């Protein structure tokens, strides 16, 4: 479906409900997936999504159109999710550890055989600090210094948390893959 972005924005600026609904339908799916990556359960993700779209509709006038609408919406959702996490005080759990292991074992694992729900589950099972920093660094593309500023932590902490997240995810992926291989073998026998 081709969306006339400008028309959509104009409609939202005029507070037209139909335009708002159209915008929601266009981006809610991806943004909900994003929310699910940042929080621990579905209910929280729904809350974050709802708050995010309220903000989007409120601040639509500040959208200048110099970047794709999706990125603008995405930034609002990410910020709302971070705010939600701060409210939950989960970020306090981030250990201010400056030592981090960059020598993560090589892995030939790929995500091709995994379902989205599986990977989402892996991310949600991470400690909150690791989960947040993994999302920001690996998926959103923030640099560690930016994450440090965003979360008011040190850059070293961001790096160590990311290393930890990556190690935990690899362990989960390895474990899952072994299990799958064994299942395949058993099936073959």
């Amino acid at each position, binding site marked *: 479906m081709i969306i006339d972005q400008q028309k959509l924005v104009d409609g939202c600026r005029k507070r037209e409900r139909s335009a708002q609904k159209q915008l929601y339908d266009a981006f809610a*799916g991806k943004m909900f997936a994003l929310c699910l990556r940042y929080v621990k359960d579905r209910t929280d993700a*729904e809350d974050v999504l709802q708050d995010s779209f309220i903000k989007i509709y409120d601040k639509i006038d500040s959208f200048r159109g110099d970047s794709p609408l999706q990125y603008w919406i995405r930034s609002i959702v990410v910020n709302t999710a971070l705010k939600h996490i701060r409210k939950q005080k989960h970020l306090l759990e981030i250990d201010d550890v400056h030592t981090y292991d960059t020598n993560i074992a090589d892995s030939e694992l790929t*995500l091709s055989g995994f379902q989205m729900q599986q*990977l989402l589950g892996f991310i949600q099972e991470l400690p909150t600090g690791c989960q947040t920093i993994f999302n920001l660094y690996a998926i959103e*593309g923030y640099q560690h210094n930016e994450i440090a500023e965003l979360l008011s932590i040190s850059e070293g902490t961001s790096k160590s948390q990311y290393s930890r997240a990556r190690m935990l995810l690899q362990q989960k992926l390895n474990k899952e893959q072994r299990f799958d291989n064994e299942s395949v073998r058993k099936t073959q026998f």
Partner: protein
Amino acid sequence: MNQSEKHNFEDEWKQFFESASETPPPSVWDGITEQLDKKATPIVPLVWWKNPRTLYTAAAVVALLLLSWPIMKLRSPESQKDRITQTPQSTEPKASTDPGLIEGNASERIAQATSPAQPSSTNTGNASTTNQLTILPGITLPAQLISRLNSGINPTQDIDSHQPVSADAPALSEKLSGEETPSIVTLAKQHVTPNSSTSGQELPPVLAEKNTSGLTLAALTPLGTSEQSVYFQKRYVFYKPDVTEQVTPEPTRNTEYWAGIGVMPSSFNPQINVTSPPAAFSQANASRQSMSNSSKAGLSYALQMQTGVKVSKHWSIETGLSYLQGNSTFISDGYVLDAVTSRSANVLENALLSGGQQKNNADFTASAGFGPDPNKIAAFYIDLDQSTNNDYRYLQLPVQAGYTLNPDGKVSYTVLGGMVANLFLKNELQSASGYRFTTTPQDGLYRTLNWSAATGVRFNYHISEHFSASLTGAYQKALSSSLHNNSDVESRPQLYGLTWGVRYDF
């Protein structure tokens, strides 16, 4: 792990979740629309405030309240004394047109007055002793009226003399005294018979008879002030009185003119210098290039009279008269001895005499005991250090401008600058005890008038409105030589002084 592999890991996750989508439940949109609807219709606690008509009404009410404020103020407890006359007057027009209405009001008041819940002094029968009769709570009748009531004198006599009586007053009196107003009669009875029952119950009809007593009618008449047909209206005129703001004049010390006296201990140095050595010195000391001589300042003093005028808040011009006794010492390394007369003279004296000769002042040189030309006579130069007292007397006329800081303060500071006219009076050289060489203006050696530049700083302490004490540091320096064109001697006096003075401000 190499960097590319690391990026592969992140890219893989990124690519995977870039396209990830999860359909949110419909309740999310419902919640969004609910919140949007709430925002669209903001809850205003006072919705009516949005209505312009209500706003105008509220504004009108406020204006009305503001306008009626004086009236409300009038009805405050402070004005209760006035109400005793104002209340019947205000009801009087109604009574004159509708007597029944006044009866009704009266009945209500009576009911209040005789109510057991609000016992008054009237009910206790103490009216004659307290000299006041309470009709309504908070309202009292004057003692004069009560005494009239008690004595049976018709109080309206006095009232009639001041206020016109309504034409329908007799009718009203009849009504009041009739059976139609038993309650009023009851009140009257209660008032005039202090020992009567105070239960507030209506008395038997016997009291309502016309011929109960003249006292009853007399009591009723003043109570029924509705007889007055004059409409009173109190006017409250609000105005701002033209209060002329009294401009308090600045506390000016009467310093337009002042006069003062002072004494100035000073250090006076004539800085006199003999530039041309005497001929005897040249003859005796051909090998020496110059002669050594100098002046040393001595303790001097000046008596001063000052007067000044203030030209602005800070600026002033002052002048005065000062008598200066300038003492100094002239030091030379020898003196001149006249070979003919054995008259000795120090270098300065010799130079002055030579100057006198140049001025063809033979008398002057002769009086000094020298020949016609001291430099040409046979003389010897005695190479011996000699100190000579060199005293001057000047009459000074300073003209100075002053700038005063903090002129209205207790302590003020004035910076002075100007010129001083030095009128030469006398110079005395005392080279030896008992011998004085005196020079006066007539001798033509010293200039009669010599100008000096003067500057100084003065501290003024205002003792009282008129008197102030001052301490002035002064410096004077002659602008030119104090002697007439004399190639042998040069003098440019300077003075440092500290003046203690008292000033009177007119």
